[in-house]
Structure formats: structure tokens, C-alpha cells
């Protein structure tokens, strides 16, 4: 009975192809806008997450804003390490921008002055060469680690260890090579003390990378650090700032998911409009097929089988539309991935399920009234109806 009804509904749909397709188009466009918009939004979120992750492992970036005339020194750091058991290590750093030059090639490069524990704390790994060690920092050696972009620009090669570059006119030896964070970033790393020596930054302990013992959860480390620093700076919690990238990431993801819900909501409206299209055409179809309904009822079709027949028709239209919409979305997202080379857009299983589920819902809801109308037609009048 059910199988027969499905067969009948396919027959009815295929016997009026143009009309069925146009009706389906509403659902196709609805599903497509839902899937494509939500997938684009989630693809963008994914890209942001990726680039965040490419910044290396998580650390607490701590900045002293106001030292109250009592600047931090090495002993302060030792104190923090002692007082905060959740903190694994602290790496002070300096930053500045310098002109890095080789022959006629030069570039403005963001320079970070670091101590030897930087590589461990920040999780930076060298592609080639060696790290900065304590003695480099102590002596203020003129050595530099550059990233691939800078190497390629200055030397047209990444085989750069031992080469000389000029940093703001000072002669430096390249001792290491690191990966570039993104396509347009140019970075260099030099010893902390060298930074002051060449006048790129004043010598101060104002910025720190803080690593936690627990590599996944920085909450405790942050709490302890906050408590300690508040006491250190006359109980002014505005004197310093501690940034946790994961907290920022969470905030960003929340914004993105709100955006996804919003976009999804807007797209759903078009799906509902598509559903109204189905209802409209089903009502026309029910009127046109009054005679057929009369004949079926005369030879013994119960009301529920007429109801089922028209419901299935609406359902098949919306489901087919849903699947076609899904396939088209897949194609569109493939094209988008090719066009926006830095991002990858894929359809997540859950959005596909939601889209199909929503088309089923639309088919049932908007098919119900026409089907009910068909089932309730009085047999004698329907039978008398001229075709």
C-alpha cells in the first residue's frame, strides 16, 4: 500500500515535469542558501582557527601597562615562578621593527628580542640552524633567526645559515630559519640584550610569554599570575594585562556561531517560502484532480490513503528538492574553495542533515492542508466533477 503510494506520487510528479521542477526550485534554492551560507560561515571560522593555531602553541601574553615607578626585574620573574606553581616558565621579550638588508634587497621586519627559553615557552621549532642560547644573550651577540619569507626575499633561497644581513645598519649573522606565520609576515628573532644594544628597544621587562604547566588549561596559571601581579603593582589590576588566546578564540567562535544561526535563520525563511510554493501547487493539483479523487474513493479508497497519496507527493517534491539543493551546494562550495584559495569550505554532516530534515518538515507541513482537502472531498460531487 505504502509502496504503491510512493510509486503513484512519483508518477504524478513526473507526469507534470515542468510544474514539479518549478515547485521544487523553491526548495532547491532554500536548501542551497541554507547549506552554502552556513558552510561559508563555518569555513571562515575554521580558517580563523587555523591561523590562530599557526601562531604556535598557546601562551599567556602578559604586558605591564603601568609599573608604578617600580619596573620588573629578573628577580621578579623568579618570584613569580616560585609563587605560582601552575606556571611552567616565563620568557620576557622585546619587540620592534627594523630594516633588514642584504645588498640591494631590504624589508621592514618585525624583530623580537628573546632569551634562550623563548623557543621552549613559545613552542617555536627551527627548520634549520640553531637556537639563541644564554651566552648569545649575555654577550649581546649580533646574530639573527629569520623566517622563510625574509630569507626568500633577501637571498632568494632558504639556505641562509651563516649569511650576513644588516639590521638597521648593524652587521648580523643568520644562525637559524623558522617557518613564516603567514604569507605576508616577515619576522626576525635576536637576543634580548642585542635588542637594547642596537637601540631597537629600551631594556625593560614589560612583555612576557607565560607558559602553564597544564598545556591545555591556562586558567589556573592565569589566576595565580593575576593574583601575584595585582599584589606586585599596589593592588591595581589595571596595571597589567594578561591575554589568553584560547579565551579570544572562544569569544570569536561564539560570535561566529551566532552569525551562523543568523544566516541559517535567514536562509530558512526562503525554505519556508519554498514550502508555501509547494502548498500552492498542491492545492491546484488537488482541484485539477478532483475527478481522480472521486474515482479512487468510489472504488474504495479510504480517506487516509488519499491523504497519504497527496502528502507523499508533497514530501517527494520537497525531499528531491532538498537532495538536488544539497548536490548544488556541494558544487558551489567546491568552486568557492577554488576561488578563495586560503579557505576550504565543506558541507558538515550536521548541516546536511538539518537541510534534509527541514525539507521533510516543510513537505509535511505544507503538504498536509492540500492533502487533507483532497481526502475530505465528498465522493459523489468529486465523481460528478468534469475533468
Amino acid at each position, binding site marked *: 500500500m505504502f509502496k504503491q503510494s510512493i510509486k503513484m506520487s512519483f508518477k504524478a510528479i513526473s*507526469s507534470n515535469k515542468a510544474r514539479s521542477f518549478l515547485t521544487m526550485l523553491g526548495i532547491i534554492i532554500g536548501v542551497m542558501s541554507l547549506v552554502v551560507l552556513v558552510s561559508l560561515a563555518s569555513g571562515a571560522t575554521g580558517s580563523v582557527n587555523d591561523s590562530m593555531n599557526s601562531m604556535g602553541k598557546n601562551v599567556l601574553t602578559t604586558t605591564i601597562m603601568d609599573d608604578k615607578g617600580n619596573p620588573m626585574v629578573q628577580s621578579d620573574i623568579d618570584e613569580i615562578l616560585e609563587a605560582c606553581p601552575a606556571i611552567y616558565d616565563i620568557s620576557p621579550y622585546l619587540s620592534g621593527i627594523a630594516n633588514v638588508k642584504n645588498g640591494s634587497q631590504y624589508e621592514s621586519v618585525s624583530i623580537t628580542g628573546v632569551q634562550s627559553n623563548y623557543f621552549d615557552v613559545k613552542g617555536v621549532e627551527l627548520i634549520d640552524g640553531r637556537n639563541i642560547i644564554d651566552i648569545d644573550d649575555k654577550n649581546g651577540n649580533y646574530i639573527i633567526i629569520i623566517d622563510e619569507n625574509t630569507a626568500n626575499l633577501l637571498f632568494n633561497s632558504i639556505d641562509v645559515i651563516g649569511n650576513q644581513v644588516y639590521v638597521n645598519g648593524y652587521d648580523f649573522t643568520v644562525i637559524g630559519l623558522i617557518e613564516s606565520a603567514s604569507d605576508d609576515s616577515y619576522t626576525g628573532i635576536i637576543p634580548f640584550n642585542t635588542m637594547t644594544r642596537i637601540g631597537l628597544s629600551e631594556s625593560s621587562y614589560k612583555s612576557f610569554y607565560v607558559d602553564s604547566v597544564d598545556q591545555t588549561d591556562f586558567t589556573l596559571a592565569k589566576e595565580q599570575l593575576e593574583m601575584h601581579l595585582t599584589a606586585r603593582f599596589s593592588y591595581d589590576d589595571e596595571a597589567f594585562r594578561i591575554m589568553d588566546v584560547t579565551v579570544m578564540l572562544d569569544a570569536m567562535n561564539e560570535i561566529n556561531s551566532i552569525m551562523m544561526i543568523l544566516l541559517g535563520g535567514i536562509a530558512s525563511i526562503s525554505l519556508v517560502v519554498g514550502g508555501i510554493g509547494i502548498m500552492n501547487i498542491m492545492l491546484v493539483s488537488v482541484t485539477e484532480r478532483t475527478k481522480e479523487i472521486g*474515482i*479512487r474513493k*468510489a*472504488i*474504495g479508497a479510504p*480517506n487516509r490513503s488519499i491523504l497519504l497519496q497527496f502528502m507523499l507527493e508533497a514530501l517527494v517534491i520537497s525531499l528531491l528538492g532538498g537532495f538536488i539543493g544539497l548536490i548544488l551546494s556541494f558544487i558551489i562550495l567546491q568552486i568557492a574553495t577554488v576561488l578563495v584559495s586560503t579557505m576550504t569550505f565543506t558541507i558538515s554532516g550536521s548541516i546536511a542533515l538539518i537541510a534534509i530534515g527541514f525539507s521533510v518538515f516543510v513537505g509535511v507541513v505544507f503538504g498536509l492542508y492540500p492533502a487533507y482537502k483532497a481526502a475530505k472531498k465528498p465522493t*459523489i460531487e468529486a*465523481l460528478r466533477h468534469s475533468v
Partner: protein
Amino acid sequence: MIKLNNVSKIYNVGGEVIKALDDVTLKIEEGEFVAIIGPSGSGKSTLMNILGCLDVVDIGKYILDGQEIEKYTDDQLAKIRNRKIGFIFQSFNLLNKMTAEENVGLPLIYQGMKDSEIKVRVKEALEKVGIYHRRKHTPLELSGGQQQRVAIARALVSKPTLLLADEPTGNLDSKTSADIMTLFHLLNDEGNTIVLITHDNDVAKQAKRQIRIFDGRCQEVNLNV
């Protein structure tokens, strides 16, 4: 087998009360071939709707196959029509988008019968009316006479208690009409009860018993004398 006891059917059309059937009492035995004749507006269609369980009586009793057809629900009436009544209409009333065999199988689908069983029954019915060779054609590809044969096959397929034919030859030429009437005789000889509704005396004469209906009242007549 079929009993109408003091049956009346009253319509209220625009404030005017019309007695479409007025105190009709009628008895049709199993295996009979009865013609009901009357002009349009005589209550013929109302009588057919009542006999065919498309409608229910207002006053009186209709007993079909020992079962009193009272105020049943739509679905209960549909079930009775499906199993006990075989309809044959003037305009054939076949579904144009289905083939002959699909049309004939439709009543059995509504009985929830298995496909394999339906196939056997459909073949049997189509062979009986001599149209099995055209089973894959849709009604629009068949002549009027062929369409009516398909419709008769559809009426026969559920082995009903009563074959109810409403002007079955009304849309056919005289030669084809004669063929269809011959088929009815054949079916009657095989034991089928047939009630034929017509306005045509020549058609009615071929039935074994005639009932005339006029202004909602029935009267036994004999047209063959």
C-alpha cells in the same frame, strides 16, 4: 440480498425540499439482472448512489448482503464499496495516467492485497472481458468500447456482490453497445448480480426485470410485452 425498505432521500435545494426518493421499497435477489429506467431528474442517480453506498438513506433501511447500510463513516462506506460493489460508469471513469492493468488492480491495492495476487486477479478479470492483450495501454490509447471493458474488469476484479452499471452504453455506438450488453448477459449467466441504470428502453429491455422510477417512486414494469 438487496433490500430497500421504505427508503426516502430528501434534498434541500435553496430552501425548497425535494424528495429524490419517496418511500421506495425494493428487493433484488442474487443473480438477478435488473434495469432501472427513468428520465433525468427522476431520482435515478440518487437511487444508484444509495445502492452503490456512495450515499446513505435519510429514512428507511438499506440492507446489502445482510448488512444494514446506515450512517457509516466515509471510510467504512469506502470499504463496503471496495468489496461489495463493482461500479461501471457512463464515462468509464478510468485514470488516464495509468495503464489498463493498473486501473483494474487499483481496488485490490486499496484492499492491501499482495502484488503477486493482484497480478493473478487482474489477468483473470482482463481475460474475462477479452481485453488482456491491451493491458499495457492507457485509456487514451483505447477505444470507447475497450475502455468500458477495462472498467468492467475493474468492477469484477474484487468479486463484488453487486455490479452497478450507470448508463454503461451511453457513450458508445450501437455496435459496441451491443457487444457490451452481450458481455453483461455473459456475466449474469455466470452468476453476477447486475443492476443497470438507464434512460434507454431498448437497453432496459435486455434485462430480465425492469423497474421504472419517476418522481422518486419505483414501479415494476415489463417492457417485453
